[in-house]
């Protein structure tokens, strides 16, 4: 996981619409960039034993999967594909021999992938031979060329990474000058913040990093990564793993003051650790040219046609037959109770937090030392104490200006590490939203007979047979996965999308096999022989010939309308009847909501009364 995140680390420029950072000083942190520098020497094309694909072929598969993953997870990132040790040369100023820039540093699109497809397999090797060929090697030149690619980019780059794919641990056949040049160029690149990574591929007799590459690649960032240098396969596997999920950069949703009272304030950042991922929104295109189309919305006066500016319009709602008008500002003002922030109310034992009091996914807070110094210390003290005493803090929470308050429970979470010493749970408080009285509905409980011990025990056996270890990232969203695959298929001219595995479907056969006779035994215990649980309950008796009656259109007289309005009984009519009535009285109805129709008719009737 750790490495995968590294390689796919993404700096997403797009902030989710509802995730504005009100901190104000946030700056776009730039984009990630990744250059694949691939050895195209003869050795790379040698097929493995037992018909295993050549190193070149494997590399291309790997590059392709990174490209396709990038497109979905972080489409603003830049990638480039450069070959070295080629016969042909192709680079921006054609100043380097034996370096072939296949893709310049750019955000990848469908064409890039189609281009890479040409290099795959047996045909791919032939195509590569034809277009690039294999020739002399100068890693120094190749690195120099790559550094030019970086410097030609005018965008701000946040993360620069260069990956060398080769199966040769020794490049220049003992040419000391070339080795030196490569080292110098590598040092120059590292100087400008480029991280150089080696993806050494299988080589008969083993790949000796210490021969040459130890001086080229960037030193590992910390001790724990050291081991990975020697183990190329895992990196490759990770690279080949397809990820079809949009990645988001860690960024606080907002920064708030957390007030304990009496002017004791600390600063916290609010983070979203889980949010329902949705399909990216569609773009409108012109049918003929596929050009993107923008929409403009204008308001104008229905009678004189003049354009209405925001000041020319007010907001209105109809309640109890009366239209109430307010300014736009007033509508916002109504929602304002206090300034944004968290205000501590007090503490409660954890058992007072009800599992079923859930109305929204939780948020997460972590101290912001840069806003108020000392926040982290205070925060840690609260965290330790709350977790020690098994308490949660109850707070009033106002996320933004002109937003009404909600009460939240701050549930402490101490840092936990997994076996590999990476963070499994981060330290901080979960922010759990609590329901108000209005959010809790009165449900009439169904009271029925309860099960006997024998029946319960049988069910326990069933439960036992079907137990598994739940992990929150175990299920992919089939709707999203299907969408991404459809897009891929269309973009890459595939005949049909790759099939998805719908993990949300029960594996019925496997379950049945595991249960064996248990299911039947349980049914025998709880259901009488003639009982069919799948059967629908008796359908409600239909009123004879109802359908025909409904169809018959009944015109509403003005008198009837008047009566309905006066008695507030319009609500009892069905939507089609109301629509007909609107049509009949010549009311333009834009809405289809019942209340809108009722409002329209009510206003009409009231106007008639005035006239």
């Amino acid at each position: 996981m750790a490495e995968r995140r590294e390689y796919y680390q993404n700096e997403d420029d797009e902030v989710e619409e509802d995730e504005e950072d009100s901190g104000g000083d946030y700056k776009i942190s730039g984009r990630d960039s990744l250059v694949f520098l691939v050895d195209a020497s003869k050795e790379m094309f040698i097929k493995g034993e037992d018909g295993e694909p050549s190193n070149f072929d494997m590399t291309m598969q790997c590059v392709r999967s990174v490209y396709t993953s990038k497109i979905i997870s972080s489409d603003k990132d830049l990638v480039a594909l450069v070959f070295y040790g080629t016969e042909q040369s192709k680079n921006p100023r054609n100043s380097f021999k034996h370096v072939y820039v296949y893709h310049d540093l750019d955000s990848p699109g469908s064409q890039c992938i189609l281009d890479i497809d040409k290099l795959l397999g047996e045909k791919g090797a032939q195509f590569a031979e034809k277009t690039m060929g294999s020739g002399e090697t100068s890693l120094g030149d190749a690195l120099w060329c790559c550094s030019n690619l970086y410097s030609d980019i005018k965008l701000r780059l946040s993360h620069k990474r260069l990956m060398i794919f080769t199966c040769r641990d020794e490049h220049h056949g003992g040419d000391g000058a070339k080795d030196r040049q490569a080292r110098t160029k590598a040092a120059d690149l590292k100087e400008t913040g480029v991280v150089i990574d080696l993806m050494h591929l299988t080589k008969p007799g083993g790949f000796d990093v210490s021969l040459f590459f130890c001086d080229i690649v960037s030193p590992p960032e910390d001790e724990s990564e050291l081991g990975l240098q020697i183990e190329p396969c895992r990196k490759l596997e990770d690279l080949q793993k397809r990820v079809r999920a949009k990645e988001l950069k860690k960024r606080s949703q907002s920064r708030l003051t957390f007030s304990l009272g009496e002017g004791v304030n600390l600063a916290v950042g609010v983070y979203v650790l889980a949010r329902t991922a949705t399909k990216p929104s569609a773009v409108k295109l012109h049918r003929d040219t596929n050009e993107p189309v923008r929409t403009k919305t204008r308001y104008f006066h229905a009678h004189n046609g003049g354009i209405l500016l925001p000041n020319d319009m007010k907001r209105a709602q109809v309640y109890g037959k009366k239209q109430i008008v307010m300014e736009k500002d007033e509508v916002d003002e109504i929602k304002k109770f206090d300034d944004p922030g968290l205000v501590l109310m007090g503490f409660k034992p954890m058992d007072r937090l009800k599992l079923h009091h859930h109305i929204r996914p939780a948020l997460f807070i972590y101290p912001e030392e840069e806003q108020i110094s000392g926040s982290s210390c205070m925060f840690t003290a609260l965290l330790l104490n709350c977790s020690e005493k098994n308490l949660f803090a109850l707070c009033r929470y106002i996320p933004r200006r002109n937003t009404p308050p909600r009460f939240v429970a701050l549930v402490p979470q101490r840092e936990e590490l997994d076996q590999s010493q990476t963070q499994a749970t981060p330290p901080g408080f979960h922010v759990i939203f609590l329901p108000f009285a209005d959010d809790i509905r009165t449900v009439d409980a169904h009271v029925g007979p309860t099960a006997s011990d024998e029946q319960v025990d049988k069910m326990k056996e069933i439960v036992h047979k079907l137990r598994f270890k739940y992990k929150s990232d175990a299920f992919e969203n089939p709707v999203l996965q299907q969408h991404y695959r459809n897009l891929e298929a269309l973009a890459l001219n595939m005949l049909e999308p790759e099939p998805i595995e719908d993990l949300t479907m029960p594996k019925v056969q496997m379950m049945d096999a595991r249960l064996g006779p248990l299911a039947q035994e349980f049914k025998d215990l709880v259901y009488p022989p003639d009982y069919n649980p799948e059967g629908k309950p008796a359908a409600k008796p239909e009123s004879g010939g109802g359908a025909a009656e409904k169809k018959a259109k009944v015109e509403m007289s003005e008198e009837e309308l008047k009566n309905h309005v006066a008695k507030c009984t319009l609500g009892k009519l069905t939507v089609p009847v109301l629509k007909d009535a609107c049509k009949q009285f010549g009311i333009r109805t834009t809405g289809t909501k019942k209340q809108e129709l009722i409002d329209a008719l009510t206003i009409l009737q009231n106007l008639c009364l005035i006239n």
Partner: protein
Amino acid sequence: DVRPGALVLCMDVGFSMSNSEPGQEPSFEQAKKVIQKFVQRQVFAENKDEVGLVLFGTDGTKNGLAEDGQYENITVHRRLMMPDFELLEEIESKLQPGGQQADWLDALVVCMDLLQEETMGKKFERLNIVLLTDLNVQTSADQLDVIIDSLKKARITLQFFLPFPVDGEDRADGGGDGPGPSAAPVRPGKGLSRQQTQGLEMVKNIMTSLEEEDGLEEVYTFSDALQKLSIFKRIDRRPMAWPCHLTIGSSLTIRIVGYKAVTEEKVKKSWAIVEAQSHQRDDVKRETVYCLDDDNETEVQKDDTIQGFRYGSDIVPFSKVDEDQMKYKSDGKCFSVLGFTKQELVRCSPFMGSQVVKVFAARDDEHAAVALSALIRALDSLKMAAIVRYAYDRRSNPQVGAAFPCIKEKYECLLYVQLPFMEDLRQFTFPVLENNKKFKPSESQLSAVDALIDSMMLVEKDEDGESVDVFKVNHIPNPQFQRLFQCLHHRGVNPDDPLPPVEPWLKRDLERPQAVSARCQTPLQDVKTKFPLKVVVKKKEQKTSADVFGNQEHAFTLTSIPCEVSHFNRRSLFQVGSVNPVRDFCTLIRQKTVSFDQACQQLTHRIEQLLGNRSPEYYMKSIACIQAFRDQGAFLTGIFRSSGICSSKVKNRPSAHVELKTSCLQHALLFSDALTLISKDEVDGSTFSKQDANQVLTAFYSLQLTSFKKFV
């Protein structure tokens, strides 16, 4: 389709209701407030329940049963209909104390008669009578059994609202088992009158015979009712039933019904846009046009557009039809068990979605009840939960969620909560806190926080050693609704008044309980001294071009130069008038009667006023003003001022972006129509630094361009 309920509010307005001890609000006023709040809520929540209003103790008599001196002083004020503004206004102005007394049992009979008559031939989900009285009147109990009988037969439920709590014990300590401070208005010293004691016995008698042991729960005090309107819950709409089958494997099926038990209640109605003068919705037409992103902004018909999705740097055309054809298809509603897992594993996972569903066995199916009960009990004793695939219907996306067992004294059910998909999770890592030397709190700091926590516990032990929650969030009505209803009500009754301030009780609901506040004073002071907390003053950051060119809002906030729009002094002779501001301005400059700066300020003020009106002649006038600024070499100052105006607007009303855009448009018009672009030379010689001036100019240039693109 849930049929609405019918409810009769029956309020005692007799003279005893107006009596009160000194310093106490009369029962009449309290009862009136309860009714007002209730009707307000019904009107604004657009509850479909029909409401009638019967008053007793009135001077006059108006009811269907009045005959031969029977049922006198009882007035049917309003028959059953949906509550509306008229009713609210009537309660406000016409609901007055009466000078008579009437038997509340008689009034109850009138209400029953009214309900019977009005609901004849119609089917109502619920029939309810709400009696608000102080019981301070002689009643004849001889008909009691008949009344109880017919209430039962007609399935009419009753609620009583009294000035005092129903049991004596409660009366002593403030009464009610409700949360929060429920200070019942007990008549100090005196206790109850003979009639009241007798009446109370009858109330108990009726309620217990109607609803057996729970009957007395439907007797409230006025103050309780005002405190928590959730009492009116029983007339709220019932959640929709969702019948489905719970399946385990291919052969084990249990018939179930789900109900949304907890979900975030949103404001139901949205705001319509009306024309500012006529207040007519039809006067505003909204038009959306599609245009290409070229220089001419060529318009395109809606039918000539298709949808596409970004795929990397490309946009892949993907029509709606194709999308529907290719998209994931769910095979209808389901509640299928995927497997069982330890509850603790699920509890660590974030919960998704916005609801909790309670799952029961199908109604009146005892076999299903037994089967589900077996599952619930098995899960409960094993501390496990079911992981299920949940799909509401054929059109909705499937979810994966957890069903937890829930065993209550009276019922059992499963609680379903949605769990995240892999795509929903964001694996963020945060720096170490507790093992970081820099942030590690000292022992004394830890104990200070410890003491603070102890002083701020919201769960306290009462005399019997039982813990009492003094701040139950789920008993607080959402203040958003209360505030909205208050403002709507106020504006509806007083269309020209500004909005009222937030009601004090509503504010109090959102504050820390007073006892806790008092208790934590000392520990809080201790924490304050032990933890140095300092607001970090940011160095003025270098402004990047992105900030300047970013977008309009940025451009404006950047140039937030304080602007004082001085109060217009009518008595002064030396000012820029509105008739011919340019001439006045020039005169002022020439005569130097006021400082140059002041003259500029005044002219700016005028421009602002002119821009406030929207008609071409005012535009021309403001253009002339800006021209004058320019001629006087004060152009830049003017720009700064007008941008100041905008930014101050933004500051004061953060939501005023729209308005801001208007000003942008106007600026754009001004620039294009009358003035050539400002040259750099004009910047020189101003009182502002060249760098600042350049920044403003670039900001304005970009603004001009964007506003043109957007609006013209």
